[in-house]
C-alpha cells in the first residue's frame, strides 16, 4: 500500500509551503516534494512604475530581509543612472546590510535552530523552543534577544526604521549619520561580538561531539555560489559572483550584471518557486547552493580577524574539500555573523560615514540596471529595464532562497530516505525533516520563539485515494 505523507504547513518559512513524501509499496521513500505555495507577481506589476520606486516597492517581498531588497534595488537603480555613489553613501548602505545580517543570522540560530541543537532533536517538543531555552539557559537567551535587537537598531538608527525603511535612493542615500548615533552604535559592540562567538562555540562543540551525524545530515554534492571580493574574500555587499563545482574548483567568476549568461531558472509543476541552475552545466547537473554554506565554500578568506580564525576551522571540516552537509549551514551562518559584527565596527570607525557627501543625482543614462547583493539567505538579483523616461518596462528578480530550492528538496529527500523506514514515522523524524529545511533558513525564519509543537498531519491513503489512517501531532 503506497502512502503519501504531508507535512503542512512547514512552519517558519515565508508564506506557505508544504512537504509531501510518497512511499512505495515497500514503505520506502519514492519521491519527495517541497511545495512553495506563494506567488505575488512583482515581476509583472512593477511594470510602468517610475524606477526610483523599486527600492521601496521590492522590500515588500519580504519583511525579514527588506534591507536586502532595498539595497539590491538601489544598486540596480544606480546602474540606470550610470553613477558611482559617494563612498560615505556606500559605507552607510553596507552598514545597514551588516545590521540585517547580524539580526537575521543571530535570530535564526538562537531562536529557531538553537533549541534543536542546544536541547536536542528528540527532546520534549513542549520545551524544544525558545521558552525552553530561556528555562535551560536564561543568560544565553537574553544575549540572543540582544543580538537581534542590536542588528535591528543599526537599521533603525541609520535608515530610520527597522522594517521597510526609505533610505537608499538612486545615486546614494537620503540621510546622514550623526556623531551621537554613531557613538551609540559603537558602544558595546565588542560585547555583541563575544556573544556571537559563544554561539560559534556551541555549534562547533555540537558538531565535534556529534561528528558522524553532523557530517551525514542531508549531505550531498552540489555546486556553490557567492560573491567574493578582492583575493577571494567573503563579500556580502559588493563583489564578483563566483561559481564552484562539487569538487571545489572555481569554474566561473563574473560581474553580477552578466548573470543572465550564467544562470537560468527552471520551472517545476509542483511549486511556485522556480529552480535556478548554472547554465553551462545544464538543468540536471547545474544546481548549486547559496547562503552561508555556499559563500564560505567559494571564499578563500574572511577580511576580519576573528571570523577568519573560525573560517579556517570550517574549511578544514571536510579536509579542504567543499563542506557538503546541510547541517554545517548553522556553523557557516554564525561565522558570517561574526564577520558582520566585525565589519560593522570597521565601518562605524571609518570617519567617512559622518560625511554629508551622500548623493550623486542625475538623469537616466542607461536602459537597464542589475543590482546583486548577498542577502542573509543567499544571492539576490534585481534586474530592471527602463525606457528613456525612467519607467520600468520589465523586471526580473531571482530571490535568494530560490537558488536553494533544489537543495531544500534534496535535503528533505535525503532525510526522508535516511530515516523513514516503513509506515511508522516517529515524531523525531518529522522534526528532522523540518530541521533539514531549517538549515537553509528559507526566507522567513520566523524570528523566534517556537513555543509549543509543530503541528504535523500524517495521512495514510490507499490507491483509490481513500483516507485509511491519520496521525496528528498537536
Amino acid at each position, binding site marked *: 500500500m503506497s502512502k503519501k505523507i504531508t507535512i503542512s*504547513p512547514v*512552519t*517558519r518559512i*515565508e*508564506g*506557505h509551503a508544504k512537504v*509531501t513524501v510518497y512511499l512505495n509499496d515497500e514503505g520506502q521513500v519514492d519521491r519527495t*516534494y517541497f*511545495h512553495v*505555495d*506563494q*506567488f*505575488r*507577481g512583482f*515581476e*509583472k*506589476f*512593477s511594470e510602468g512604475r517610475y524606477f526610483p520606486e523599486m527600492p521601496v*516597492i521590492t*522590500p*515588500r*517581498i*519580504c*519583511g*525579514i530581509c*527588506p534591507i536586502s531588497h532595498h539595497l539590491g534595488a538601489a544598486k540596480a537603480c544606480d546602474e540606470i543612472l550610470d553613477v558611482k555613489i559617494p563612498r560615505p553613501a556606500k559605507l552607510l548602505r553596507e552598514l545597514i546590510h551588516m545590521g540585517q545580517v547580524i539580526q537575521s543570522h543571530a535570530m535564526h540560530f538562537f531562536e529557531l535552530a538553537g533549541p534543536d541543537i542546544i536541547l536536542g532533536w528528540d527532546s520534549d517538543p513542549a520545551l524544544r*523552543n525558545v521558552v525552553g531555552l530561556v528555562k535551560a539557559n536564561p543568560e544565553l537567551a537574553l544575549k540572543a534577544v540582544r543580538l537581534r535587537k542590536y542588528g*535591528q537598531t543599526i537599521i533603525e538608527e541609520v535608515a530610520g526604521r*527597522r*522594517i*521597510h525603511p526609505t533610505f537608499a535612493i538612486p545615486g546614494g542615500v537620503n540621510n546622514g549619520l550623526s556623531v551621537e548615533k554613531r557613538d551609540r552604535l559603537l558602544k558595546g559592540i565588542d560585547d555583541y561580538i563575544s556573544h556571537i562567538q559563544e554561539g560559534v562555540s556551541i555549534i562547533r562543540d555540537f558538531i565535534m561531539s556529534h561528528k558522524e551525524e553532523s557530517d551525514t545530515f542531508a549531505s550531498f554534492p552540489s555546486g556553490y555560489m557567492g560573491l567574493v571580493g578582492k583575493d577571494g574574500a567573503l563579500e556580502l555587499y559588493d563583489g564578483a559572483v563566483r561559481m564552484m563545482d562539487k569538487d571545489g574548483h572555481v569554474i566561473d567568476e563574473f560581474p553580477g550584471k552578466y*548573470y*543572465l549568461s550564467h544562470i*537560468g*531558472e*527552471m*520551472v*517545476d*509543476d*509542483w*511549486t*511556485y518557486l*522556480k529552480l*535556478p541552475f548554472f*547554465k553551462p552545466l545544464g*538543468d540536471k547537473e547545474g544546481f548549486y547552493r547559496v547562503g552561508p554554506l555556499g559563500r564560505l565554500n567559494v571564499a578563500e578568506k574572511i577580511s576580519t580577524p576573528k571570523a577568519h580564525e573560525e573560517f579556517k576551522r570550517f574549511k578544514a571540516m571536510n579536509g579542504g574539500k567543499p563542506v557538503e552537509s546541510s547541517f554545517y549551514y548553522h556553523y557557516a551562518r554564525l561565522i558570517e555573523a561574526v564577520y558582520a559584527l566585525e565589519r560593522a565596527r570597521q565601518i562605524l570607525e571609518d570617519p567617512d560615514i559622518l560625511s554629508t557627501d551622500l548623493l550623486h543625482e542625475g538623469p537616466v543614462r542607461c536602459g537597464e540596471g542589475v543590482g546583486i547583493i548577498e542577502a542573509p539567505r543567499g544571492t539576490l538579483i534585481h*534586474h530592471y529595464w527602463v525606457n528613456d523616461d525612467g519607467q520600468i518596462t*520589465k523586471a*526580473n528578480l531571482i530571490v535568494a532562497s530560490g537558488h536553494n530550492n533544489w537543495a531544500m528538496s534534496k535535503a528533505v529527500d535525503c532525510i526522508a530516505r535516511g530515516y523513514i523506514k516503513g509506515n511508522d514515522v516517529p515524531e523525531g523524524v518529522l522534526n528532522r525533516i523540518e530541521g533539514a529545511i531549517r538549515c537553509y533558513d528559507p526566507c*522567513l525564519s*520566523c*524570528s523566534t*520563539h*517556537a*513555543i*509549543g*509543537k*509543530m*503541528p504535523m498531519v500524517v495521512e495514510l491513503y490507499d490507491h483509490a485515494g481513500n483516507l485509511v489512517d491519520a496521525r496528528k501531532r*498537536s
Partner: protein
Amino acid sequence: MKTITMASTWCEGCSGCHMSFLDMDERLVELIGKGLVLTATPITDLKIPPMGTDLGIIEGAVATDHHMEDVKELRHRCKMIVALGDCAVFGGINTMRNYFTVDELLHRGYVTTESTVNGTPPTSNELGKLLPKVLSVHEVVKVDFFIPGCPPPANVIYHVLNELVEGRVPRLTQDLLYYD
C-alpha cells in the same frame, strides 16, 4: 487573572507585520504577563486555534483559494478578528496585480522572464489557485478592528493589544494611524 487568547495567521503578505509584532521586544513578555495567551500563531507553531479564541489576527491579503479558507476558518474560531497591516486592511501592495489577469502574471513569472528556461506556469493541485483579484480581509469575512500600516509600528500594535488586555476597546487616533 483574566486571559485573552490570541491566534494569528498570514495570507498574502511579507510577514513584516509579524516582525513588527516581535519588535515589541520585551513588551510582548509584559503582555503575556498581563494575560495574553498565544495559541496558534506562526511563533507558537500550533496550526489550528481552539474554538472561541478571543482574538484572531490576520496579516496579508486574500489572494488564493487557500487564503480564503484560512481566513474563514479563523473567523469561525475567533470571537474578534483584527486585520493587521495594509495588506489585510486595504489589500496592500498585492493589489497592484489586480490590473492584470492571472494569466498575464503567471506568463511573465514563468515563461517570459529573461532567466527562465523553457518555463510554463505550475499547475499542481497542492498549490493555491490565484483569485482573479486580491481582496482585503473584510471583503471576505467580518473584521472587528483594523490596524493599518506597512508595517504598523510596534508601539501601535502594543497599544492595541494592551488596551484589549486591559479590557478596553482601542481607538486609533492620529498618531497611531499609518498608511505606510
